[in-house]
């Protein structure tokens, strides 16, 4: 594999934030975990066998690498004395491969040592001190990475001749930038951490800080990257010797491959062995790298349950039949239970049986601390829960139709009958399309109207939600408008299809205080105008006080108190609610 692939292999799957987020390896040691992982164990064993057998060639190989037997020329595999056959000069292929392992190991060590030494140190220094050094190192690293390494090695050959060790040293230089970038980005992230500041305050020298603390933070990614770099090193060494730019006197995997290939008509199986050895070794290193990544650096991949289990768990939800609510209730949630996979095939419930009714024109506040499950309920009504989520029981009735029981019903209702107003306005707009385009797509997805008709309606609506120059905004991209405007756009999008229910998930949390009031006012107006039923999820009791009619208080996945707004604030029934109220008042006072 090329050095580019080595670098991308290391970065792929490691979303940039994950680099800093290491799960501490408590409990079992890293080595133990590596060995109990079947893939890791197999790879490690294979590599150890190859390396040890290779290093032990003087004692273990059938014959020396240059021993020829003229009677065994082109011997097929499994001939006596030649397990893998012999080449055109009568040399035993197995022995040559074993002896060649030493060359390969040496070459790889050189590549690794040079690239790590150079890349990691420059990365540490550049990330820590930044400034001009970083700029220069960046440029150099860009230049080095902008050429295929093999081209430089060929140019080098014109100078040094067949000196594979020099070539590998140069390859180490070529690959050092991959370490540089990796280490630099981690150090940049880490240098602002508190423990670094603390170390500085205590008076530790920079070298000490870098050497102990910062270096500690990069060890896992460097180890993972090294596995891929070794794989690339083997590939390049085999490749360079295969091209004929190596020392023909020394046995190496690439030379054996080249000779077998030239001799392919006279000894067909001969090609197989070196090709297999090279391929399997590289594969083992790459797979080992993947396992190391999993073991050292579990990223935020949540586990998913096998499909069978999912069906088991969710079957119950669909089969339940529950009583119908009264007709002016637009949205009715009964006994809703939502869970997520945890551990081995287990499930953790985050919503533990919730009942909720929303009537026409009612603004129903859903209050609670973060983690109480309120957003989960909001998502579930729209059917936009994350893929891993499971609806374990209950129903969501929209004008009598159970949306949980029927995916089609949920699909039809989404966007048309139930609409969503999200929390963070900027990240909820598609950055690649204009405002107008997005709004139009959204509207035309649920209503059969022509483009012009849609545009007309949307422009009017944009104006209604308080956007001054709707025509201009229509043509703008999301990054060109402010947060407040974006939220209005989102509200416009939600309301455009004329839904019955609006589910607003913390719609004002991400906005400036002044804009908050306007948006809330807007929501109330729309609600009155159109007779919408609204669920307003929020942790801010001030918002509740402002526009909600009814409130449900959630704690740990259950509704602990439900009443209308006045009653709640005047005489909260439950202790928890009282705590909430008192703490929020303090906060409000502070905010003033």
């Amino acid at each position, binding site marked *: 594999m090329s050095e580019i692939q080595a670098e991308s292999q290391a970065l792929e799957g490691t*979303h940039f934030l994950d680099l800093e987020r290491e799960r501490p390896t408590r409990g079992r040691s890293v080595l133990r975990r590596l060995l109990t992982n079947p893939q890791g164990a197999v790879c490690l064993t294979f590599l150890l066998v190859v390396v040890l057998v290779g290093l032990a060639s003087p004692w273990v190989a059938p014959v020396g690498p240059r021993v020829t037997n003229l009677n065994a020329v082109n011997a097929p595999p499994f001939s006596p004395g030649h397990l893998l056959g012999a080449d055109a000069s009568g040399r035993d292929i197995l022995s040559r491969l074993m002896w060649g392992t030493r060359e390969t190991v040496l070459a790889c060590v050189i590549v690794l040592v040079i690239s790590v030494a150079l890349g990691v140190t420059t990365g540490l220094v550049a990330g820590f001190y930044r400034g001009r050094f970083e700029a220069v190192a960046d440029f150099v690293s860009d230049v080095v990475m*902008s050429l*295929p390494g093999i081209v430089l090695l060929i*140019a080098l050959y014109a100078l040094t001749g067949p000196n594979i060790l020099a070539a590998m040293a140069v390859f180490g230089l070529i690959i050092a930038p991959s370490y540089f970038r990796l280490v630099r980005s981690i150090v940049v992230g880490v240098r602002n951490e508190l423990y670094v500041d603390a170390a500085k305050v205590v008076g530790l020298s920079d070298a000490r800080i870098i050497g102990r603390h910062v270096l500690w933070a990069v060890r896992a990614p460097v180890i993972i990257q090294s596995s891929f770099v070794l794989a690339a090193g083997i590939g390049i060494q085999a490749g360079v010797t*295969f091209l004929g*730019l190596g020392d023909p006197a020394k046995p190496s995997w690439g030379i054996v491959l080249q000779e077998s290939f030239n001799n392919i008509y006279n000894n067909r199986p001969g090609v197989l062995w070196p090709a297999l050895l090279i391929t399997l070794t*590289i*594969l083992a290193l790459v797979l080992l790298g993947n396992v190391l990544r999993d073991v050292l650096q579990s990223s935020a991949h949540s586990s998913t349950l096998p499909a069978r289990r999912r069906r088991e768990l969710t079957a119950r939800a669909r089969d339940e039949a529950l009583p119908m609510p009264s007709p002016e209730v637009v949205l009715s949630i009964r006994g809703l239970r939502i869970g997520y996979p945890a551990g081995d095939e287990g499930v953790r419930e985050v919503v533990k049986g919730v009942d909720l009714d929303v009537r026409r024109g009612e603004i129903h506040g859903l209050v609670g601390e973060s983690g109480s499950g309120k957003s989960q309920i909001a998502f579930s009504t729209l059917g936009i829960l994350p893929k891993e989520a499971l609806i374990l029981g209950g129903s969501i009735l929209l004008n009598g139709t159970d949306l949980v029981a029927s995916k089609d019903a949920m699909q039809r209702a989404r966007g048309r009958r139930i609409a969503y107003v*999200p929390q963070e306005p900027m990240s909820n707009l598609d950055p690649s399309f204009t405002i107008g385009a997005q709004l139009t*797509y959204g509207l035309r997805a649920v209503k059969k109207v022509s483009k012009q008709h849609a545009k007309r309606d949307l422009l009017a609506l944009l104006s209604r939600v308080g956007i001054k120059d709707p025509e201009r905004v229509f043509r703008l991209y999301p990054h060109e408008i402010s947060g407040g405007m974006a939220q209005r756009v989102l509200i416009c999008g939600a309301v455009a299809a004329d839904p019955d229910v609006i589910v607003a998930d913390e719609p004002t949390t991400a906005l400036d205080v002044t804009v908050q009031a306007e948006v809330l006012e807007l929501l109330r107006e729309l609600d009155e105008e159109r007779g919408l039923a609204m669920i307003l999820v929020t942790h801010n009791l001030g918002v509740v006080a402002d526009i909600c009619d009814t409130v449900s208080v959630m704690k740990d996945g259950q509704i602990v108190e439900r009443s209308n707004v006045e009653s709640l604030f005047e005489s909260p029934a439950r202790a928890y609610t009282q705590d909430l109220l008192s703490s929020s008042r303090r906060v409000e006072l502070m905010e003033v």
Partner: protein
Amino acid sequence: MLGALKKVVRAVAVLLVVTFVSFVLMFGNGPGIARAVLGTQATEADVHTKMVQLGLDQPLLVQYGKWLGGLVTGDLGRSFFSGQTVASALATRVPVTLALVVLTLVLTAVVSVLVGVAAAVYGGWIDRVVQLLAVMGAAIPGFIVAIVLVFAFAIAVRLFPATGYVSPDQSVSGWLASITLPVLALLVGSVASAAAQFRGAVLDTLSRDFVRTLRARGISERLVIFRHVLRTAGGPGLTVLSLQTLALLGGAIFIEQVFALPGLGQLGVASAQQGDVPIVMGSVLVIIVFVLVVNLLGDLANVALNPKARTR
């Protein structure tokens, strides 16, 4: 506008640095080069005369300057051995390598987008299979894939000639036949790597808020993926492709050796072994230029896809 200018300046800087380093490496041994050209009977005086004739006696910086100057007029010097102009030597080789790389790139783009999206969207066993194949495909060196292919078609199944090159002006069908296996050999590794990265880009995009909001609008999943997600993942996708070009150029050198294609890589290797320095220098130049052009194009396309990049 300024951003584009900065990029061009940077590209030129890279070009200068790399060519200078290569130049120094290769033209450093003036006497040795002259001696190789003259042959065995050369005396010291002969060597010196030849050096003067080839301009090798001047300081390296001056030589480099002359070479750069020649670059502008399209004169890359002449082969030390055959006297043929470097430009004409390259002219016949470049289309072969170019065709190989471009074809592979196009096919890579198509296949890896489909595969990467499928893996990201459907998940499950499709995803696992794709990931496994990606690892294997990226791990196996390109020349080994090439050897396996030659083995299969030269020995096992004699479908069509395993190695050798037919130029398109001779016979289009012959050209296609001669280029199929090389492209295939390059494609395996290329698709494996690109599909995995593309899958990552799509997964990243899928986890973003606006995708959820688009779904909440009622837009069908198919449209969400093919219209919106692909558009946003396209930026990183293009970066993946331009990185792949780099890998493809390196891989093409091996492929040309195995399949005996008269391309740039084969020219470079042969002239490096011979010591025909101007030709190696010319090959290096062409490769760098190609890489830089591809990067520039990728950047430009990125700007087209990503509105945010335009205002910078």
